[in-house]
């Protein structure tokens, strides 16, 4: 059965092979239906269906100059322990001082995700021992976080051709501000851990997504959309490869109508692609385990990207007791809006929710809608444009400089240009063919001076980046379309004369 967009019900298909029935690792996913407790299709051969449940906990590093509670610089890759203040190292006598920019970043993100912003939120201590957490506790917001009850809409294509998209929604439980920990480098050879506190105290926004997703594809699409939103807001650069966006997946399976199954937590996922793989593998593993009469343990597992599987993380400590307590050194965080703003107030000391709301940039969904409206392109096209870094700008630049209609230009951008970029792992900004050159080429095509197959040949030549203009290449390779009627007739006559036999056969039909 063809793999379709995820709907929430999976079955394992038993296949009879030599030596008896053998379960196949290929899973058959049912036709798309609502992610939350969706309809169960009529029974097929064999086993009862499973409903996978996927929730996500996402940590996004806040894009700011300094840390959440100290004035140390925030920077990726700096000499070890050079971006560490006395507070970050947890030396006695130091106190946390909240960074206004981090608060604004969290409010922006909460608003973009349709959350209720808590005008009063609180800070707490979460205690556990680890070498990269010098204080022995992390300052977080466990009781009353800064934002709650939001939603994130994302799209999936139902089939592989990207021609049918569905919109899904995942509920956002909350967003909280918290400190990042330092980095531990494990030196197994010398049986020691090297600790770098540069990252200790950097501001994080933890975004908790409710378990409204049912497969790797949905989880990946939701995270991708969140990444785009964060990058658009500027609240986080959200580059997973640099650890600015970390995703933990909570996965469980159950039969429809029955209570939720035991869930596992999957960590160590370093890209959106691996997220989809990790989630799907874990769903498959749990189903296999349960169908073989085993149980799913409530444990933390790590994703091994080389092997494409999840493995248990060593858990010598047993169940953690974080002994949450209010952070005694920080009063409640009070946020204001236009109505509650006191009269005589120092504006530097105020975070005004309405002021931030008015200045929110166009979110990806709005940008897509505008592209569709302005240029008459398909929604699926707008997705790719917004999804690929710099591609929208490139497209708009070309449209500005060519007479070719945007609806035709988009084809060149999404098939020819994008496929070449992907092949060579380049972004639109790094394209060897500039928007100017491409527009130039498309003008030749539009004016009828070359055929579209000739245009593709010119494109390939341009890609080499040898500095030639489209016109130069056309002349060099003699790709000009012949416009002269008489010349065309002569050519046709010559062909007919040469192939008399074939012509007679064709005429006789």
């Amino acid at each position, binding site marked *: 059965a063809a793999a379709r967009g995820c709907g929430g019900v999976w079955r394992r298909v038993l296949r009879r092979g030599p030596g008896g029935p053998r379960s196949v690792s290929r899973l058959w996913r049912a036709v798309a239906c609502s992610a939350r407790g969706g309809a169960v299709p009529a029974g097929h051969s064999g086993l009862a269906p499973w409903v996978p449940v996927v929730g996500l906990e996402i940590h996004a590093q806040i894009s700011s100059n*300094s840390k959440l509670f100290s004035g140390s610089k925030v920077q990726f890759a700096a000499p070890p322990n050079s971006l560490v*203040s006395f507070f970050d190292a947890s030396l006695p006598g130091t106190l946390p001082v909240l960074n206004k*920019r981090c608060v604004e970043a969290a409010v922006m993100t909460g608003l973009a995700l349709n959350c209720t912003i808590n005008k009063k939120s609180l800070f707490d201590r979460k205690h556990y021992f680890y070498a990269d957490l010098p204080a022995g506790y992390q300052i977080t917001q466990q009781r009353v976080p800064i934002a709650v009850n939001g939603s994130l809409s994302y799209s999936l294509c139902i089939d592989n051709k990207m021609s049918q998209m569905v919109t899904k929604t995942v509920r956002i439980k909350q967003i909280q501000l918290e400190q990042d920990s330092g980095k*531990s480098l*494990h030196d197994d050879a010398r049986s*020691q851990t090297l*600790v770098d506190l540069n990252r200790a105290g950097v501001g994080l926004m933890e975004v908790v997504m409710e378990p409204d997703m049912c497969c790797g594809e949905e989880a990946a699409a939701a995270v991708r959309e969140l990444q785009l939103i964060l990058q658009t807001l500027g609240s986080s650069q959200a580059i997973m490869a640099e650890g600015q966006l970390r995703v933990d997946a909570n996965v469980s399976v159950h039969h429809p109508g029955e209570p939720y199954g035991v869930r596992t937590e999957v960590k160590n996922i370093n890209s959106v692609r691996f997220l989809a793989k990790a989630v799907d593998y874990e769903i498959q593993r749990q189903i296999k385990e349960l169908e073989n009469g085993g149980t799913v343990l409530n444990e933390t597992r790590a994703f091994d990207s080389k092997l494409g599987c999840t493995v248990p993380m*060593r858990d010598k400590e047993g169940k953690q007791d974080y002994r949450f307590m209010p952070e005694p050194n920080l009063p409640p965080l009070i946020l204001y809006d236009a109505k509650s703003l006191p009269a005589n107030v120092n504006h530097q000391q105020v975070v005004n929710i309405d002021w931030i709301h008015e200045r929110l940039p166009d979110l990806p969904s709005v940008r897509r809608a505008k592209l569709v409206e302005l240029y008459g392109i398909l929604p699926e096209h707008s997705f790719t444009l917004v999804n690929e870094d710099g591609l929208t700008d490139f497209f708009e630049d070309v449209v500005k400089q060519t007479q070719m209609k945007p609806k035709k230009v988009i084809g060149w951008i999404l098939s020819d240009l994008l496929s070449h970029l992907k092949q060579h792992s380049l972004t639109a900004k790094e394209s060897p063919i500039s928007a100017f050159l491409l527009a130039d080429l498309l003008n030749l095509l539009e004016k009828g001076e070359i055929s579209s197959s000739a245009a593709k040949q010119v494109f390939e030549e341009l890609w080499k980046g040898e500095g030639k203009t489209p016109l130069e290449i056309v002349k060099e390779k003699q790709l000009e379309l012949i416009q002269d009627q008489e010349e065309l007739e002569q050519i046709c006559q010559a062909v007919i004369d040469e192939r008399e036999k074939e012509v007679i056969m064709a005429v006789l039909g």
Partner: protein
Amino acid sequence: DSVTVEVLDHLEHLALVDFRDAEGVERLREAVRFAERLREVNTEGIEPMDSVLEDRCLYLREDDVTEGNCTAELLKNAGEKVEEYFVAPPGNIPLPKLEERDTFLKGS
């Protein structure tokens, strides 16, 4: 009596405190008894107070880089270091099991 051996063991693991001997445990019991008296006050319908600072203004700092760059000073505190990294054991060293700990409830 809520201060049982299991509770003490649990607390020692969580907080790495050492109750040392029977006298220490009795002191803990005294402290718990003293604090329990708070329950005699009727607090129905009253919001709990976390801190006497709750009405104070939470100061918001501008996002400027004002600290850091004191690697040498910080590393002065390190027992062991490798090229400006702090050195720690490979993982958390768990407290020995109850039976193996020689200071637990010594002399009780």
